[in-house]
C-alpha cells in the first residue's frame, strides 16, 4: 500500500463489546476519504481509533510508512494529524483569534503567515476575530473548529460530521472549503451522515456496517453502485 495515512484491520471498542470488527481506512495527500454508513456502524469510532483514542485489540495505523499504532493521541497530533470532533469542537469562551492561537499551541515559529492563510480561507473569521467563539452561528463555529485544527499545518485532517446541524446552504459552503483545503495537499478523512453530498466530493468512500468495511471504492463508483444506493442513499 502506498497510502499516506491508513489503518489496517482495526478491531476494538471502548472496553465492552467490539465496535470495530476488521475495518480499514486509508487516505492520500490531497485526497478526501469519506466514511459513511448507518447509525452505530462505528464511523466515528473508526476515526477516533486512527487518532489513538481507542484501545485496539488488533490492527495497525500507519502514517507516512511509519507504524504509529502505539503513539498517544497527543503524539499523533504532534506528528501532523489534526482532528475536529463532532461536538465541543471550539473553545467557546475564547475569542476566535485565541481559538486559532490555541490550535497552534505546539508551534513556536511565526504564526503570521498561517493566520493570513486562515483568514483568506475563512474571511468571516477575520471579521469576527475578537468575538467570543461561543456567540457565533453554527456554520461560523464549524469554520472556527476547522480553522483551529488547520493551525498546526497538519498533513492529515480528520472531520467528525462537520455538517451536523447546519443548514444545507452552509453545508455546501463547508464542503467547498474542505475541497479548497484538500487542494493544499492535506489528506482529509470525513465521517458523514449526509452520505450523498459527502460521496460527491470524495475521492474515496468507505461504507461501514457493524464496524466492517462493507463497500469500498471511488466516491463516484459508490454513488452509482445500485446496492449502495438502495441500502444507504435512499434509492
Amino acid at each position, binding site marked *: 500500500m502506498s497510502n499516506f495515512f491508513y489503518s489496517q484491520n482495526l478491531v476494538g471498542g471502548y472496553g465492552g463489546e467490539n465496535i470495530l470488527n476488521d475495518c480499514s481506512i486509508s487516505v492520500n495527500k490531497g485526497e478526501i476519504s469519506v466514511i459513511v454508513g448507518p447509525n452505530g456502524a462505528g464511523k466515528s469510532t473508526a476515526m477516533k481509533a486512527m487518532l489513538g483514542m481507542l484501545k485496539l485489540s488488533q490492527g495497525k495505523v500507519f502514517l507516512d510508512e511509519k507504524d504509529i499504532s502505539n503513539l498517544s493521541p497527543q503524539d499523533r497530533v*504532534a506528528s501532523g494529524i489534526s482532528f475536529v470532533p463532532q461536538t465541543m469542537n471550539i*473553545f467557546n469562551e475564547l475569542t476566535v483569534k485565541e481559538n486559532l492561537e490555541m490550535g497552534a499551541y505546539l508551534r513556536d515559529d511565526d504564526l503570521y503567515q498561517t493566520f493570513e492563510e486562515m483568514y483568506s480561507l475563512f474571511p468571516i473569521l477575520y471579521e469576527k476575530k475578537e468575538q467570543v467563539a461561543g456567540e457565533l452561528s453554527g456554520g461560523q463555529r464549524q469554520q472556527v473548529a476547522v480553522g483551529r485544527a488547520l493551525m498546526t499545518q497538519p498533513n492529515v485532517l480528520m472531520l467528525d460530521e462537520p455538517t451536523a446541524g447546519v443548514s444545507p446552504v452552509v453545508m455546501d459552503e463547508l464542503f467547498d472549503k474542505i475541497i479548497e483545503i484538500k487542494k493544499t495537499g492535506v489528506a482529509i478523512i470525513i465521517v458523514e451522515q449526509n452520505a450523498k453530498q459527502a460521496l460527491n466530493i470524495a475521492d474515496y468512500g468507505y461504507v461501514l456496517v457493524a464496524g466492517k468495511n462493507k463497500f469500498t471504492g471511488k466516491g463516484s463508483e459508490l454513488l452509482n453502485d445500485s446496492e449502495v444506493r438502495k441500502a444507504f442513499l435512499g434509492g
Partner: protein
Amino acid sequence: MENYDLLNAIILLANFVIVPALSYGSQLALAALGITLVYAVLRFSNFAHGDLMAFGTMIAILITWLFQSWGLTAGVLPTALIALPFAMALTAGFCLLTDRVIYKFYREQKSQPVVFMIVSVGVMFIMNAIVRFIIGPKDRTFFDGEKFIIKAVEFKSYTGLPEGLSIKSTQVLTIVIALITMMMLFYFLQKTKMGKSMRAYSNNEDLALLSGINPDRVVMITWIIVGMLATIAGVLYGLDKSFKPFTYFQLLLPMFAAAIVGGIGNPLGAVAGGYIIAFSEVMLTYAYKKFFMYLLPTNLEPSGLMQFLSTDYKFAISFIILVIVLIIRPTGIFRGKTL
C-alpha cells in the same frame, strides 16, 4: 459647624466603612481568586485554601523573624514585605508537593469532583495541623514599620474638623498590592500563551488536549499561582489584622461566598465578589448612630446604635448572601466555570 455636618458624616463613613471594607475586600478578592482558579482548572472546591493561606503566612512570619534577627528591616514598611517573595515561592512549592503526593493520584483515577472536594478537606486538616505544630494556635502580630499614613489626631488638627480620619499603612499596602497582583494575573491570563492555554484547558479540556496543550503543565502553573495568591492574601490579612490559624480557617466562608457570588470559575467574578462580601459585612455591622447624628436635626436623633447586626454575626452575612445567590442566581453575577 452646621455646614460641615455632611462632610463629617462622609469622613466618618470613610474612616469606619469605606477604607476598612476596601482593604478587607481586596484580601477576600485575592483569596477568592485562588479558589476560583482551582475550581476552573482542577474542577473542585478547594476547602484547604484557608489553611493554605495560613501556611503561607506562617512561612512569611518565620522568614520575617529571621530577617528581624539579622537586623534587616524595610524601614517604614513592614519587614514581612521583604519576606513575602520568599514565602510565595516556598508556598508554591508546597502546593506542588501536595499535588504530587495527593491530588495527582486522584487525577489519574479520574475521580469525581466530589471526591476531590473531600480529599481537599483532608488536606485542610493536615495543613491545619502542620501550621499549629510549627507556629502554634496563638494570635500573632508580625507588623513593624510605620503604622499610620494619616492619624486621626493629625487629620483633625490639619482640617479643623471634629471628625478624624485615620488610614493605616497596611490598608493602603493591601489595596495597592492587591491591585498590582490582580492586574498581573489578568494580564497573564489574557495575554500570554501560557495563560491562554490555561483558559483553553478550563474551557474545553478535551479540545485542549487535541491542540497539544500539556495538562500537567497547566496544573503545575495553576498550583504555583494559587500558592502565590494565597500567600499574598494571607500576609496582607495578617498584617492588617493579626495572624491566628483559626481565623484563617474561618475566612473560608466569606472566601467561598465571594467566589460564588461573583460566579465561581470566573476571575473577574472573584474580585467583584470579594468587594461585595466585604462591603456587605462592614456596612451591615456598622453602628450608624453617629452618622445620623450628623445628618439629622437634633430632635430626630436616633436613640439606639442604629446597627443592623452585631459584629458577632458577620459570618452570618456571608452565609445569607451565599444562600440568596444560590437560590436566585446560582451561576453568580458573571457566568463562570471558565477562566
